[in-house]
């Protein structure tokens, strides 16, 4: 193994790349485009939520109902359709023309001001639970804001009618949630248990009981556990005396999708358990998010979440593809025959390739990081140390990709066959390695498969380093697996790149 020989191969590859200006341009532009698409498609907020308002409230000139609906309308996402027939509204929600319908009864303002009992009906389509939660909370905020100016308006209730219940989309099979139940209860028993029972029956959350809050917090910060539910000592007491539900949730902000699921499950179980006895406006969930440098009130932006995984994926994809094609070309144009009859060893050939391709990959990784930072403002760790570690992981990914590329190129005789390998390798790698959503959102039977995909570990390690401020020392297993994979693939490549023509 001589450095001179390795560099000879690298230099030749670089000379070839240098000639192909369009290839260089594309290899920088393509990751930018891919990242931009990822960022735009998955990073966007919900917009244009259609809500119908049925306002039968006609008593006074100044309707409180109008005030409430005006506040709701302040939200830029809300699109109003106003109608006066409650049935039309219900049908609209049923048929998904509208995501929600708010129905004010006819004597709403009067009853409210006279202290008589009155009821708002809220029909919400639960086809997208996140959206439903969003509408409900928006509505709650709006009426609380309006009613603050009126005294004595405590005699009304909101009836929520969920329509189209069903949970679509990638919902996790299990999400690890830590639980701190300090609720000492009351004579009636612990009311917190009722919530836990519902969460447990739902089966989506795997509840782990713990009393060590600090330890739990570090676990969440490290991403090993997704959230902590904290019931205060006075949970039951406050519920019974003040009719208030106070609950604290600390979540791993680096997993925005899991956060959403946890929060929506929590809210729905609260509603299920207590909506008969308690006013929903008194449900008070205090959320705290770790691992978000911008805010502790919300999880990180989707683009921030995707960036580390996009880095790994793009680098893997391009080096894998370019290697396969480069080796096929060497064989088809006969230059492999010349190299194989030269003193170069197979290891030197492969290392030379690794060197030249990693230069390309690092350029691509940098263009991804710059795109996410400059265009989408992704908040990953931009410290020198974490970036160096990120690049080292990229290096391991490149080596692995090269090995697979060389191996598969020996199995293919033509470009057409090479093309068939792309979906075979890339699609499982893309879908099962947790680029879009955490592994736990995969169906049960697919989760073990993703454990065999090295990119899973690369994504995990990359997220730990770039989102959770961790270092190599915190992700030893992922590193060992990546290294083993890289070494194995290179060995396979060397074996397959026999000094013989077949």
């Amino acid at each position: 193994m001589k450095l001179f020989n390795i560099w000879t191969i690298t230099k030749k590859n670089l000379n070839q790349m240098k000639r192909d200006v369009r290839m260089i341009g594309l290899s920088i532009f393509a990751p930018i485009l891919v990242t931009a698409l990822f960022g735009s498609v998955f990073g966007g907020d919900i917009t244009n939520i259609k809500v119908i308002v049925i306002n039968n409230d006609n008593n006074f000139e100044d309707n409180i109902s109008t005030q409430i609906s005006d506040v709701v309308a302040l939200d830029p996402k809300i699109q109003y359709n106003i109608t006066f027939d409650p049935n039309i509204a219900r049908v609209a929600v049923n048929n998904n023309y509208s995501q929600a319908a708010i129905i004010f009864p006819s004597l709403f303002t009067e009853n409210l001001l006279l202290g008589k009992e009155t009821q708002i009906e809220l029909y919400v389509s639960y086809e997208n639970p996140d959206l439903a939660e969003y509408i409900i909370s928006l509505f709650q905020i709006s009426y609380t804001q309006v009613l603050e100016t009126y005294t004595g308006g405590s005699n009304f209730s909101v009836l929520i009618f969920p329509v189209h219940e069903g949970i679509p989309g990638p919902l996790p099979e299990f999400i690890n949630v830590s639980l701190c139940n300090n609720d000492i209860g009351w004579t009636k028993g612990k009311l917190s248990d009722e919530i836990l029972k519902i969460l447990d029956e739902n089966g989506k959350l795997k509840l782990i009981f713990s009393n060590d809050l600090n330890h739990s917090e570090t676990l969440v910060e490290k991403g090993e556990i997704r959230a902590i539910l904290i019931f205060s000592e006075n949970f039951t007491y406050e519920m019974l005396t003040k009719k208030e539900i106070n609950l604290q949730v600390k979540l791993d902000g680096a997993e925005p999708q899991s956060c959403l699921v946890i929060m929506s499950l929590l809210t729905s179980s609260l509603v299920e358990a207590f909506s008969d006895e308690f006013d929903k406006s008194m449900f008070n969930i205090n959320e705290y998010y770790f691992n978000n440098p911008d805010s502790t009130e919300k999880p990180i932006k989707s683009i921030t979440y995707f960036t580390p995984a996009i880095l790994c994926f793009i680098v893997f994809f391009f080096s894998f593809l370019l290697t396969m094609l480069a080796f096929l070309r060497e064989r088809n144009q006969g230059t492999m025959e010349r190299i194989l009859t030269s003193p170069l060893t197979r290891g030197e050939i492969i290392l030379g390739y690794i060197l030249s391709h990693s230069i390309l990959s690092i350029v691509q990784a940098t263009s991804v990081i710059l795109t996410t930072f400059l265009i989408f403002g992704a908040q990953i760790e931009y410290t020198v140390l974490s970036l160096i570690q990120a690049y080292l992981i990229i290096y391991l990914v490149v080596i692995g990709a090269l090995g697979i590329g060389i191996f598969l190129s020996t199995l293919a005789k033509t470009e057409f066959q090479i093309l068939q390998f792309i979906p075979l390798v890339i699609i499982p790698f893309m879908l099962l390695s947790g680029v879009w959503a955490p592994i736990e959102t995969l169906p049960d039977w697919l989760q073990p498969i993703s454990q065999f995909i090295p990119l899973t570990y690369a994504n995990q390690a990359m997220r730990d380093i770039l989102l959770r401020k961790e270092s190599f020392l915190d992700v030893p297993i992922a590193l060992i697996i990546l290294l083993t994979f890289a070494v194995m693939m290179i060995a396979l490549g060397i074996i397959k790149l026999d000094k013989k023509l077949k």
Partner: protein
Amino acid sequence: MELAIEAIGITKKFGGHGKGPFKKPIVEALKNVDFKVKSGENYCLLGPNGSGKTTLIRCVLGLLEGEGSIKLLGYDIPKQRNKIIQKIGYMPQETSLYSDLSVKETLQFFARIFGLKNREHRNKAIETILDVLKLKEWQNMIVENLSGGMKRRLSLASSLVHEPELILLDEPTVGVDPKLRLTFWDYFNELNKKGATILTTTHVMDEAEKSHIIGFMRDGRLIAEGSIDELKKRIPKYRKLTVKTTIENTESIGSLISKECDLEVVPSQFKIEVFYDDNSMLEPILELIKNETKIQEIITTEPNLEDIFIHFSNKKEGSIDK
């Protein structure tokens, strides 16, 4: 004399894998070939397309694995190949160049992989080969833009830039114009004079004559080898005497000659052909003819390679003529 190439009992089969209806037919490309090239020889493998020349060269280089034992410059192939690989220059049949490198970059690459580490030494070697093969003015051109002939020259230069001792050239002159072809062969002979052992393959008869030793290949067998003179002599009655006469019917003279001298005679109109091998036979034959008729023209011909090849090709399979 030392042997540069010593290949014994080389058999190479292609195909044969797969099962049932998918089984590929077995093609025997080389059938128990014994092949030796002495050090300093200029050897040419001659044979029609598909006779196994390329397969033999690839086997000798260890690029293909077949049965039999091979030694190059005294070392076992493929086991000890690393020891002598630097001394071997191989030019594949196809052009085999990186189309997106420049001429100079190509030569730099091949010089480097063949261990010319010293920059000055390397540059000098490249300069020399550029000069010899008249590529100097094109040295910064991209290979893709070169003409076919220039690509062949560059391909040759790439194989020879490290001044190998043993040069294996697989059909070096395919697609090369006659003038360049002569230059190539002159160059090969020059290298040979400087001490390099050269093995070429070709299917063009005239070219092979430029080599010292010719090996005929046919259907995966080496059917004959030797210098041209040796090969000619191995054909019985290989010389042909054609005598043009004034009489039309030469049959009586023909039967007379074949009776007297015990030679094969082909009489035809105004012409008589006699096959012989010893020049001392000429006088009695001509004497016999002169007695019968007036001689108008005498032509003696030696067989060309084609005749030799046809002669050996017609021999029974399996018998290797040495």
